[in-house]
């Protein structure tokens, strides 16, 4: 045993500080590269201090488990495509949720055996307990109730996170239908399930036995599944960051169960991080968090919104090339369609070509473009687009009026002018990229369909808009050959 109790606590403090620094370092791209090492160092320190600390047995078993997990982790991290980041993140959330459920169950199991030993009159020395077992031994009746509340919360949040993340993973990876769907009863069913959980919890606090908490875990799992299944594809950025937040709260709840401050601190950090991301995403869509959770746009029939008259005028690659040749400043606004078509590499080449001809090329990124916060930035970074060309909505919105050509690649709702002009539109008030102020707008799009929100986009009917139909990747490649 290398880490005595005091030393372990000190290691935990250092680890907590390193975690905070590693999250704070993400304020810009350069410091981020350094700060990731703080996170790794903090994690290594925390794990080492625990493994070689007091009260840990079966070291061999746990090393095997770590090795298996680490191997899988290395494999996944090496294999994953950048377009698959949203589903990877969702999958990782589900792991945290599942771990929280397992650890919570364990706590209850151990509590049961410790109480049994106490009953049988075994002495502490004879019992041969692990660190956590020993903590349990010293608890009085009130503390045991609190402990049960904590495990209950940990398991509940963990189970919701687990199944919710699996559904999110399925939707993001295309293994499940992205459209919102609910069982009959809708949110009433969720409410009933939540009520059932509370009843089971009260029974459990009263000492009704382990079956209550197992059943509660199943019901909570159902809530997670049903809740996320009712939310549509375009709201995924909110869902992913919400689950991120839940995974943090689950860790914090488990920290309370185990009286481990490092777990509490880290869980709270992650939880608040996810909460802030959800808030930013909701703001990007001008919707309240509750309305996102209670169901997405995707399933609703369009109620408000004006009919649009006029026609969409198509354009061919030659003419697009001509426009680009004549332009001085070009802005590219990518959306989820770029990720679907895997067009980021072609877009990057286009950027290089245009830049080598002395044109200003910039990117306009809407906060909810893509399927998770910052999705577009990562894709463009992967394709080696310099990050200083990639601007946020607020940074670039005023510049559109001085832009010659805007190319929209696979985006729809985030460039819909009716968000600003039509108070009856379902997306009224949502901040959008003011692309229509540019001299020419070219929309690369597969067909004439509407976006995820199902709303017609008057932008496509404007006189300075030209529709460049076709698969995004092929369309951009066609331009590359002609430029």
């Amino acid at each position, binding site marked *: 045993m290398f880490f005595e109790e005091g030393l372990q606590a000190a290691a935990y403090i250092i680890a907590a500080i390193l975690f905070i620094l590693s*999250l704070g370092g993400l*304020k810009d*791209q350069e410091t*981020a*590269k350094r700060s990731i090492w703080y996170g790794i160092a903090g*994690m290594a320190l925390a*794990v080492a201090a*625990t493994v070689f600390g007091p009260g*840990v047995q*079966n070291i061999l078993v*746990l090393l*095997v488990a770590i090795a*298996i*997990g*680490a191997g*899988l*982790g290395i494999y*996944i*991290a090496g294999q*994953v495509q950048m377009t698959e*980041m949203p589903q990877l993140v969702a999958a990782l959330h589900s*792991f*945290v949720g*599942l*771990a929280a459920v*397992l*650890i919570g169950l*364990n706590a209850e*199991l*151990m509590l049961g055996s410790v109480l049994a030993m106490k009953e049988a009159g075994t002495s502490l020395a004879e019992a041969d307990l*692990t*660190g*956590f077992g020993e903590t349990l031994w010293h608890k009085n009746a009130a503390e045991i109730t609190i402990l049960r509340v904590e495990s209950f919360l940990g398991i509940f949040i963990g189970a919701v996170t687990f199944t919710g993340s699996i559904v999110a993973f399925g939707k993001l990876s295309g293994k499940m239908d992205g459209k919102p769907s609910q069982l009959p009863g809708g949110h009433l069913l969720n409410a009933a399930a939540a009520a059932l959980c509370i009843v089971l919890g009260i029974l459990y606090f009263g000492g009704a036995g382990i079956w209550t908490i197992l059943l509660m875990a199943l019901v909570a799992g159902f809530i997670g599944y049903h809740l996320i299944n009712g939310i549509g594809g375009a709201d995924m950025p909110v869902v*992913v*960051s919400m689950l991120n937040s839940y995974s*943090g709260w*689950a860790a*914090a709840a*488990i*920290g*309370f169960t185990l009286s*481990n*401050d490092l777990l509490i601190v*880290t*869980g*709270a950090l*992650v*939880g608040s*991080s*996810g909460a*802030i991301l959800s808030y*930013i995403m909701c703001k990007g869509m001008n919707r309240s968090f509750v309305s996102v959770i209670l169901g997405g746009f995707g399933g609703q029939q369009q109620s408000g919104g004006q009919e649009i008259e006029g026609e969409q005028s198509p354009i061919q690659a030659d003419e697009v090339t001509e426009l680009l040749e004549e332009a001085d400043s070009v802005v590219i606004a990518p959306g989820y369609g770029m990720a679907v078509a895997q067009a980021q590499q072609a877009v990057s080449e286009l950027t290089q070509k245009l830049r080598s001809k002395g044109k200003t090329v910039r990117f306009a*990124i809407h906060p909810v473009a893509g399927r998770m916060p910052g999705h577009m*930035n*990562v894709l463009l*970074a992967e394709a080696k687009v*310099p*990050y*200083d060309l990639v601007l946020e909505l607020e940074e670039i919105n005023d510049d559109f009026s001085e832009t010659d050509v805007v190319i929209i690649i696979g985006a729809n709702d985030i460039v819909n002018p009716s968000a600003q002009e039509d108070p009856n539109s379902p997306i009224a008030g949502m901040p959008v990229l003011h692309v229509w102020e540019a001299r020419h707008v070219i929309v690369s799009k597969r067909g004439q369909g509407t976006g995820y929100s199902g709303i017609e986009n008057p932008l496509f009917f404007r*006189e300075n808009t030209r529709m460049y139909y076709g698969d995004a990747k092929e369309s951009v490649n066609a331009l590359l050959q002609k430029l």
Partner: protein
Amino acid sequence: MKFGVVKESQDSEARVALTPASAQQIQKLGHECLMEAGAGMRADFTDDAYREAGVEIVDTADAVFEQADVIAKVRPPTETEVEKLREGQTLISFFYPAENEALMKKAADKGATLMAMDMVPRISRAQKLDALSSMANIAGYRAVIEAANNFGRFMTGQVTAAGKVPPAQVLVVGTGVAGLAAIGAATSLGAVVKAFDVRPETAEQVESMGAEFLFLDFEDSSDGSGEGGYAKPSSPEFREKQLELFRAQAPEIDIVITTALIPNREAPELWTEDMVQAMKPGSVIVDLAAEKGGNCKMTRKDEKFVTENGVTIIGYTDFPSRMAKQSSSLYATNIRHMLADLTPEKDGKLDHDMEDRVIRDSTIAHGGEVTWPPPKREDPSPKQTQKKSEKPKEKTAEEKRQEEFDAFKRETRQQVGLLALGAIVMLAIGTVAPPSLMSHLIVFALACFVGFQVIWGVAHSLHTPLMAVTNAVSGIIILGALLQVGAGNWLVVILSFVAIAIASINIVGGFLVTRRMLSMFVKS
């Protein structure tokens, strides 16, 4: 179909309706091109250049009229040219149908189709074939060049060792396409430019070109813009005010460029004789309205002369022709776009679609009948859209302060409310919970606050890495499983084993993938 171009019959005209570049584009539409020898010479396009572009060169205009299905030229056709037209043949040129009704009738009687480039409707879709605008643009530019050429001083202000030179003062009257082009040319030469127009909504465009718009202090509900964004005649009172404004400017202005035209009317007199008298010797007036009688009545059409008090007045009407190469290439492009509209299938077959608004309005004779003037249509003129975009009323400072104060009060109330609620919840927990829980709660609450502060600073572009790294960090849950794995209960060991394994995936996978992502972010 064969597309033919003839040499302009007027000696003063140097432009041509076809360039080698436009010929290539026209051939892509499936047409053959035909041209009278030497038609492009005065615009600096040699016959060889045309031949290289695939144009067939024929010796006489008659040959062109004989072979071609569609003929294009710049100026309105002469009597003899109309004589040569045959049934089913199309002629595209400027025509000014209001002035040439007899000719139009004659062509219609012969069964030929006439398309007037000056009748192209002023809608956005037709901008690419709006030859009036492209020619006006050149006229405006050239007017400034002519003025500078006849003006004895620098346009731009300079401070030299030999003394200080003031910039030329330029006044542009009428800010249509020509006026705006003149403003652009004059400001880029360094002159100080003022501009006036009866349509106040053009002020924004004027200011965007770097000139000062002279506003008239006049209460009039109707503004000066008529159909299609052109000016309409103004009331006598308004005119008086306007002249007063110009009179005040006259002594200081070095160069006046007038471009005021009202469709199908004589040009309004805006620069009166007494204003010319008031100008300094050496000043220049360029009257772009000379063709329609001039905005200054002293102007002599097609002539440049110096008045008794030394003011040069230029009344040329052929500014575009003076820059024949430039104007030919723009005009040829306008013609090319017209042909593209006439052959929508790009198969070389003419489809004269009288349902198409652009084609309908431009066609003045078709199928044996005169089809001018075109039917009136509801036209959303540019002025309406401008009115819509008017800015909301500016708030006064007081209103703003009041609003800020209200917002502050609202926020305070909200924050205090939340704090009080939080405090009550905490106190409630404190009354029942054991002290050990409270110490953990302190840690928890502080960590939440630290988290909120830290995460707000994260760049938007790094949100995906943030999620990946928080994924890795939330793998810290592994500690819980580590503490449990040593228990005697085999079930607990198995569950902990699984928990450790999946938490390790999170830790290792999360950190590695974050690192991979971050290393991709490169600066240009």
